[in-house]
């Protein structure tokens, strides 16, 4: 097994962990972490499968991943802020169907 197969397998396992976490956990912080783990899996895959161009590493996938990480960080920050606000308003940081009120306003 060469190293790139190993990376691809690792990415697949990470992605699975992320999907599991997103579906199973109720707390929003865990859900956000799960999405981040899925993101890491995809970044790993993109970097691992990027072939060298003329003997040098290809810069384009690296640039894609770097931008992807920046976006993931800001989206996570935004998600956490949203979660905190939701916690302040409703007293809990979950999205259960049972807390869906009949909202009339």
């Amino acid at each position, binding site marked *: 097994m060469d190293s790139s197969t190993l990376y691809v397998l690792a990415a697949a396992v990470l992605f699975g962990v992320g999907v599991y976490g*997103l579906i199973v956990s109720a707390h*929003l912080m865990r*859900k*956000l972490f799960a*999405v981040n783990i*899925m*993101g890491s899996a*995809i970044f790993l*895959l*993109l970097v691992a*499968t*990027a*072939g060298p161009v003329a003997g040098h590493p290809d*810069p*384009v*996938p690296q*640039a*894609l991943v770097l*931008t*992807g990480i920046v*976006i*993931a960080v*800001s*989206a996570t920050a*935004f*998600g956490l802020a*949203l*979660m905190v*606000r*939701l916690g302040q*308003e*409703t007293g809990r940081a979950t*999205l259960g169907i049972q*807390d*869906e*009120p009949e*909202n*009339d*306003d």
Partner: protein
Amino acid sequence: MTTEALALIVFLPLLAAAGAVVLPKAWLALMIRIGLLPLPVLLLIPTLEVAHNGAYRVALAGHDSPLGIAWQLDPLSLLMLWLNVGMTLLVSLHAGFSFRPGSDRAQRFWPLWLLLFAGMNALVLSADLFNIYVTLELVTLTAIGLIAVEGKPAALRAAMRYLLLALMASLLYLLGVGLIYGETGVLDLYMMTDRLEPGWLAITAMALMIVGLLIKAAIFPLHAWLPAAHGNAPGPVSAILSAMVVKVSIYLIWRLWFWSASEWNLDTAAQLMGVLGGLAIIYGSLAALVQPRLKMIIAYSTVAQLGYLLLLFPLASALAFQAASYHLISHGMAKAAMFLAAANILKSVGTDRLSRLAGIDQRLPLDVFALALGGVSIMGLPPSGGFLAKWLFLEAAWQAKAWGWLILVVLGGLLAAAYLFRVLAVICLHPRRHGGQASVRRAPNLASVAALLLALGAIVAGFTSAPILDLVEAGLPPGLQP
């Protein structure tokens, strides 16, 4: 000249958004004007360019693909730009009332609004997959911020659900982009066509991107986030979200499907997309039929109406492309009008529960009129833009001898009539219409005028179709040219 105009169309709202955040409160009104008002004038320059030369390509700051940012203006992107500018300006007229500059709410709302506007302009201009990813994120995150801007629990919950799904969708899309780059070595939507061989890797990549975009476009069965998000957002936000934001994802699928993968044989996948569209039409309409709240009815109607945009894939003809484009425009205006009218009703009555709206037409005639006019276009009654779009769909299905899709379009119209007449019947014909509405305050007039203008636009679109359809025809994708 065209390059500068296009750059301003994106950067003016972007800079205005930044200005609205950092400058003192008193400058907000000026920033809003700078970010919005010059845009229609600026758009005339690219319009002339397209009229004379067809398409126009920009490598921003002289850096071309793959690391630079390439924009491509063609008739379809021009149409999307006009739609976005026109709708945003009209809806801003309403937002100017509900988020009047000077308040804290306005301070939170307008920077996001301008950012969303800039992001959408950049998105429809982008010619490369990665730049599209970045603009798509900009659009999604600002849209979610706008849903939550008033901090109501129901809206916060809807925003959170939307955020989680949208993040997952973006990751799927990004994975697809990475795989496509690995296969072809390019990221350009229009340059990859020759290099994109339909091997399993390329097919997986394309499928990942399209599924990501279908989540963002809330296509049944991936629609679960939409009704709560659009139904609980502030009025102007619901309007622009339903009218534009979900549509740009479908616009991107069109680009991938009919431009990048134009050499592929996609018949089976096209039928599948059509089935998804059909299920969306039927499910969305039935769900709209049983909603107790007006804004939720309109939101489920969006789920249904988005389905029509997918009928383009199985029908795949020049006529179907015109039908889908025209549906995109007329539904946009009609839906924005209905959401704004519903927001005015909600604000005046204090609730949008249908059972409490009996007789409201006597207090808020303008809003109910705008709601009804928008409904006429959604149902596809003549003379309206919605009627013309449905007619073109029927014609396209007739010519393709696709009787199943033809029946579906007719059935969709009937179901739309059912859920919209239910609303109008409760408002205008309910036995309790003469009591209980005396305390209703009138909504600000200009807010009602904005809704009415959009509704009239949806109706007028039934008469002035020639220039728009000519533009769509000039921008037909390579595979669909007659």
